[in-house]
């Protein structure tokens, strides 16, 4: 009699893994991140490294405190994705302590206090971002001018700005396109006038539109590789662009075009990388359509009527809250179930 190991079906070797999924997300972020670094300088790189180091350290510390095996959880790569998203969302020359606050809020508060990977109801990166935004609104508006307008700071200067407490010289700052349009419209200027100014590019803002294109490309690759569900970014884009189209059609001088909406601020990053975070999104197919559309619509509403220039972070967090309900309301009809 020969003996064998026992196991349960299915027996096939694994097709995919969480670390591979996370790695794919990181790869897909690369083109957008590289363009962001090209247009806004070394600060982007420094923030990415700083956030990654902080996030790994914070996760390791919490895991030790929670008496969980640290190595495996660190290796799943999820905390690196959170760190990368946060670093790309924060202004590139934000001081180190601001990044620290944001990363700790994301990893400790939003992720591990809820039980760690898979259990957090809110997107950790967006919680970190919103904490920073609400606590330090001024620092969060300090975006450098894109490459096309002024040569971005070099590595030395970037380190000085982030770690040395230096201020970004006025010559190197510029309002973000969303900010520019928002304050301009508030001063009763028309979009025709605003569009002629140097910060504005062909579709969105100078530089910004390229970065958005980078995220779009990476995101499309992710959707093609099925690492993310195409429904969420598509619905997000529709939820943002359709109301924008209506508003723009009615009043082209008072509302920016749908394309401007899609290619400015965090829209592309949000649609493909943030709203698609599976842990905090809806999980049913129809639920995901509603979830994405809701996040897009909320982004439009906050941008148009809210107190902040961009609304992706709030929109995603609000939809995170709605996700369980959406899931419950959109259970698909099972095979053979009565209609």
């Amino acid at each position, binding site marked *: 009699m020969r003996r064998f190991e026992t196991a*349960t079906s299915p027996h096939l070797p694994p097709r995919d893994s969480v670390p591979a999924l996370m790695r794919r997300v990181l790869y897909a972020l690369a083109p957008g991140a590289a363009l962001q670094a090209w247009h806004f300088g070394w600060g982007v790189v420094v923030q990415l490294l700083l956030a990654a180091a902080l996030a790994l350290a914070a996760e390791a510390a919490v895991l030790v405190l929670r008496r*969980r*095996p640290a190595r*495996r*959880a660190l290796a799943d790569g999820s905390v690196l994705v959170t760190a990368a998203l946060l670093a790309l969302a924060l202004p590139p020359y934000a001081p180190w302590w601001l990044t620290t606050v944001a990363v700790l809020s994301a990893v400790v508060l939003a992720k591990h206090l809820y*039980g*760690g990977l898979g259990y957090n109801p809110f997107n950790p990166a967006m919680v970190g971002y919103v904490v920073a935004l609400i606590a330090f609104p001024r620092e969060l508006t300090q975006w450098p001018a894109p490459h096309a307008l002024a040569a971005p700071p070099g590595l030395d200067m970037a380190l000085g700005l982030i770690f040395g407490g230096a201020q970004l010289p006025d010559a190197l700052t510029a309002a973000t396109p969303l900010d520019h349009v928002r304050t301009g419209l508030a001063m009763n200027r028309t979009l025709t006038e605003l569009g002629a100014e140097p910060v504005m590019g062909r579709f969105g803002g100078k530089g910004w539109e390229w970065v958005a294109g980078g995220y779009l490309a990476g995101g499309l690759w992710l959707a093609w590789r099925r690492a993310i569900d195409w429904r969420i970014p598509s619905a997000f884009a529709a939820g943002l662009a359709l109301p924008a189209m209506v508003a723009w059609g009615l009043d082209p001088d008072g509302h920016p075009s749908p394309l401007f909406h899609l290619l400015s601020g965090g829209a592309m990053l949000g649609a493909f990388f943030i709203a698609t975070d599976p842990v905090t999104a809806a999980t049913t197919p129809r639920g995901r359509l509603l979830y994405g559309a809701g996040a897009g619509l909320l982004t439009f509403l906050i941008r148009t009527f809210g107190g902040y220039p961009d609304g992706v972070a709030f929109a995603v967090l609000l939809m995170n809250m709605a996700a369980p309900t959406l899931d419950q309301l959109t259970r698909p009809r099972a095979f053979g179930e009565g209609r």
Partner: protein
Amino acid sequence: MIAAVVALGAVAAVSGALLGYAAVRFRVESDPIVDQIESLLPQTQCGQCGFAGCRPYAEAIARGEADINRCPPGGEHTIRALADLLGRDPKPLDPERGAEKPPSVAVIDERLCIGCTKCIQACPVDAIVGAAKQMHTIIAAECTGCELCIPPCPVDCIHMEPVPVDLDNWRWPYPEARTENLA
């Protein structure tokens, strides 16, 4: 002032009428609470709860005189179901009442049985057959495992045996997840 009072009064009257109508129209006919409680108990009639059977225990729970954690044969599952029904918090089994055991049935050692019929009188579900001076035997399918037949036996010929696992009652085990990774 008067308008406000009248308006509020009208709202209250309409709401009250609606609620009253709804209460009549949508009334859910439900079993009396005692029956509902009893239906959750395992019906072993073992008396480990301190009452003379499942029905008396159900009545005591319904009157609020007994807690929901006094039923060892029902175990955690029954406590949970009772907590659900009564809107209370589940609590661990009262250790004074005994511990949850694997399901068992009583077996009579037929060589020792003297046919005294004492166990027959003790069995709450008439699962023991036999007559005076005749050997007794237990209908395993009807035995609830209450153990009430054991103390009366003068020759200690009854013992409990766990119900054997076969293809019919085998249960798929709870997947042993490496929980340290999961929570």
